[in-house]
């Protein structure tokens, strides 16, 4: 160990008081009083339960077609009815929960990772690096994300993993922007300056000193991002570009049932409800987190 | 009497409890008179002025009392009747000239709006009057400045605009809530001077809300001292400055720095204003008072007339205020 020329205790004293753990506890305290957020969290836990234990909950094999039983309206045998191939819609929706959550979470993981790295580098380095990265992000934002995702799908080919990548890629700019903005505002704080003076390496400064302080903004954005990802997944599925058969995916179910909009409308009702509830839950939680973490809106 | 406030009580319903920001306050303002209400922040002086204007909004509300303006109780008037009086017979200027003007409207339009709301004038006449008003409050080249936006003016100029707007319909009563607090000292004197001269010119009464005894000495005819929502002392300005009665008033006067001061340090009132949610059971000032007695901590003294003034202190009268919070 080399001797550091400065007294490290100065930096230690200037360290932010808020540690991630206490931040999370503070979030939870504020969340507890937000009814909407609790409802959202409840629904999400329920959806996770369905996604994990779905196999035991499905009354039928979601992919088993039975042409003799096609287009059965909702009833005691088939709660949500059957589709054009006689598959049980209820079972397919349960199966779709797994798909939607997986795609949603993985896509956000991709855009979050890439967005944090790009945004952190841009914000922390500044100068040319910043300009190049952010200009590129602006260009991506100038193309409607759904068109961009479709183009990625066309290039990559169809499939679950491809959908995850396409949806993840198109929302990178949003995260990069947020992270960069946060970093710029935190960068000049005393404790970061102090950490720098003491000779900490950049990467260490970003992850030890800056990240914990912008964690809350990222958590909010990511929660709302999952709802966007779920919507995008279903949109790709609806256009026939997303998850491919035999997997049951909500958007895909809607897309394939479109032709029966007047003859069997119930085939189009339930998958849509499933998407809406999922998206709603993440929106509720995201809004609640934002209210909880933003003292200004907390008063309102 | 132009304005008579009787037993005004304004309360705020907060999550942690009810706060009486103004607690059984009575005073009156005569035609052409300048009455100052003095107090620290939290004394209820601003809430009193907003109550008169009917500008208290939830969680606050006027719980009790009457506000008689030329004999009409403003607290009982329906909103549209009150709106006819606001800006016309009673108008108000605020502490923050920087934020009290609408940033996206020209000065001209903001003053004209007031004029055209209350007077039957054509646009041209209203504009002419606007320019006259700007001239009256001492804004140079008023025709040109009328086209300015607020951000193009300094704080002192904006307060002059506020005054022009408030006076544009020749009100009988002007409520000035800390009109000089946000301004530089030199500008402060100019604005006070302006208010003083306009009072003479327009023969209007002024209710001056301030925490600054210097301002009071310069401008007021009569003074009401408020503390924690209650009136502690009321006197004409000369009496108050020469022979203050309430220990709080004495303390306030002693903490004014003076040029001829021979004291080593300025004296200060010790302690802090009590939390409005946890008021002491007796006199609100008892905790900070050097002359506090046993019963001051148990009972609230009544506001009683002494030598032509009024004071709320057991040093001058044994009378206890009847329990109001039954």
């Amino acid at each position, binding site marked *: 160990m080399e001797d550091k020329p400065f007294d490290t205790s100065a930096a230690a004293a200037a360290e932010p008081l808020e540690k991630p753990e206490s931040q999370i506890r503070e979030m939870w305290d504020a969340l507890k009083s937000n009814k909407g957020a609790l409802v959202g969290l409840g629904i999400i836990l329920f959806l996770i339960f369905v996604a994990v234990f779905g196999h035991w909950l499905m009354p039928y094999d979601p992919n088993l077609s039975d042409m003799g039983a096609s287009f059965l309206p909702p009833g005691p045998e088939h709660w949500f009815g059957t589709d054009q191939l006689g598959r049980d819609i209820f079972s397919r929706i349960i199966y779709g929960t797994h798909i939607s959550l997986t795609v949603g979470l993985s896509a956000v993981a991709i855009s979050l990772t890439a967005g944090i790295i790009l945004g952190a580098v841009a914000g922390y380095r500044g100068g040319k690096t910043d300009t190049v990265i952010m200009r590129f992000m602006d260009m991506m934002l100038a193309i409607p994300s*759904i068109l961009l995702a479709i183009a990625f799908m066309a290039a*990559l080919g169809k499939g679950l993993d491809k959908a995850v990548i396409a949806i993840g890629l198109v929302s990178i700019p949003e995260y990069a922007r947020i992270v960069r903005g946060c970093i710029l505002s935190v960068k000049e704080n005393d404790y970061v300056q102090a950490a720098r003076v003491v000779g900490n390496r950049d990467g260490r400064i970003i992850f030890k000193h800056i990240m914990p302080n912008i964690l809350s903004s990222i958590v909010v954005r990511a929660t709302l991002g999952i709802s966007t990802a779920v*919507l995008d997944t279903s949109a790709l599925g*609806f256009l026939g570009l997303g998850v491919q058969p035999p997997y049951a995916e909500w958007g895909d179910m809607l897309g394939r049932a479109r032709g029966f909009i007047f003859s069997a409308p119930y085939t189009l009702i339930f998958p849509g409800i499933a998407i809406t509830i999922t998206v709603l839950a993440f929106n509720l939680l995201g809004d609640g987190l934002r209210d909880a973490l933003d003292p200004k809106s907390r008063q309102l | 009497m132009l304005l008579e406030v009787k037993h005004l009580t304004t309360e705020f319903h907060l999550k942690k409890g009810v706060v009486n920001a103004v607690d059984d306050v009575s005073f009156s303002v005569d035609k052409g008179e300048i009455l100052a209400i003095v107090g620290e922040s939290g004394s209820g002086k601003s809430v009193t002025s907003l109550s008169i204007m009917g*500008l208290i909004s939830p969680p606050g509300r006027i719980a009790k009392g009457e506000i008689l303006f030329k004999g009409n109780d403003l607290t009982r008037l329906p909103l549209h009747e009150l709106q006819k009086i606001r800006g*016309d017979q009673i108008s108000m200027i605020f502490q923050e000239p920087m934020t009290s*003007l609408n940033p996206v409207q020209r000065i001209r339009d903001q003053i004209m709006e007031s004029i055209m709301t209350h007077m039957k004038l054509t646009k041209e006449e209203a504009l002419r009057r606007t320019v006259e008003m700007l001239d009256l409050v001492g804004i140079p080249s008023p025709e040109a400045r009328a086209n300015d936006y607020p951000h193009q003016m300094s704080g002192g100029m904006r307060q002059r605009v*506020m005054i022009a707007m408030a006076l544009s319909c020749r009100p009988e009563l002007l409520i000035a809530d800390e009109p000089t607090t946000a301004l530089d000292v030199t500008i402060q004197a100019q604005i006070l001077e302006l208010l003083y001269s306009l009072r003479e010119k327009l023969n209007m009464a002024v209710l001056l809300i301030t925490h600054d005894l210097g301002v009071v000495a310069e401008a007021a005819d009569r003074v009401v001292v408020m503390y924690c929502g209650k009136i502690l002392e009321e006197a004409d300005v000369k009496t108050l400055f020469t022979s203050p009665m309430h220990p709080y008033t004495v303390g306030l006067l002693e903490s004014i720095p003076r040029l001829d001061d021979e004291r080593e340090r300025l004296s200060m009132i010790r302690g802090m204003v009590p939390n409005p949610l946890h008021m002491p059971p007796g006199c609100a000032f008892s905790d900070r008072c050097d002359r506090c007695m046993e019963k001051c901590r148990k009972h609230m003294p009544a506001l009683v007339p002494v030598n032509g003034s009024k004071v709320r202190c057991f040093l001058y009268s044994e009378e206890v205020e009847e329990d109001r919070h039954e």
Partner: protein
Amino acid sequence: MPMLKFIIKRLLLLIPVLIGVSIIVFVIMRVFSPDPAPIVLGQHATVAATEAWREANGLNAPLHIQYLNFIKGVFTGDFGTSYYTKTPVIREIMARFPATIELAVSSIIFASILGIVIGTVSAVKKNTVVDSAGMVTALLGVSMPIFWLGILLIILFAGVLHILPSGGRIDPLLRPDTVTGFYLIDSLVAGNMKAFVDALRHLILPTVALGMYSMAIIARMTRSTMLDTLGQDYIRTARAKGITEGKVIRKHALRNALIPIVTVIGLQLGSLLGGAVLTETVFSWPGIGSYTVNCILKSDFPVVQGVVMLVAITFVIINLVVDIIYAFLDPRIKYTREEA
């Protein structure tokens, strides 16, 4: 003329953005996408035919030459011809673009008016039943997939109630002569009220489906900005003037709140162009969105490149227009500084 200077500067900034966008599109379509030849010509085309086709469409040139040819086309307005119809891309696009613009404009009008009204009422009646109802509507609006909302509207208004058409732009027999490509305008120009009404009836459901999400975003934004402005000192001043509460809200609070709301509306107009892809598919709306999806799937490169460039230009121009509207709404903004 600081404003003119500002506009010119912004238009010049367009160029690097467009070059960047063109690179992104080019890389996705030409580098990563599968070879279009077998898709266009079919699996059984001969090697010679495939080679001839590739040569004819400039696909045998090195990539950077292909890109330069493409970018040259962008600046001369020549995006090439569709692999399938052999029609110039620009003509293919122009035949469909008005339909999309008509839909997007009517959606943003719907979204702005309803969103501002709901947001304002919610803010003024904060924490009442009206507020909750408004905000629940807005929450549903941001949570429902556009295409599913479209399907629900079709089921209800076309399937159950039979009061509105389920798709298309107009009854083909009533189609007016093309002047602007906007049927509402063209039918008025022709003085054909029947066509106008029919076009309007076709427009209602897609407008609601496409505009609902933006409406919700605008309503939420309006509510929070209005709550903010309603607490400002100048609102108290306005009330002290004795003007009516309605005037206080409209002339003072909303007028100030509009400044951030306009930004959101601008952003939403951009996102509507994306949402149009889904709405047009659901309602068989003959616009650019559904067409582009097909072209992407069929690897019709020239068309896709053309569309994306056009959308990006539109997007950037919308941002510019928003900034100009800003200047009118907020006198504090001056376009004299280097950066705006």
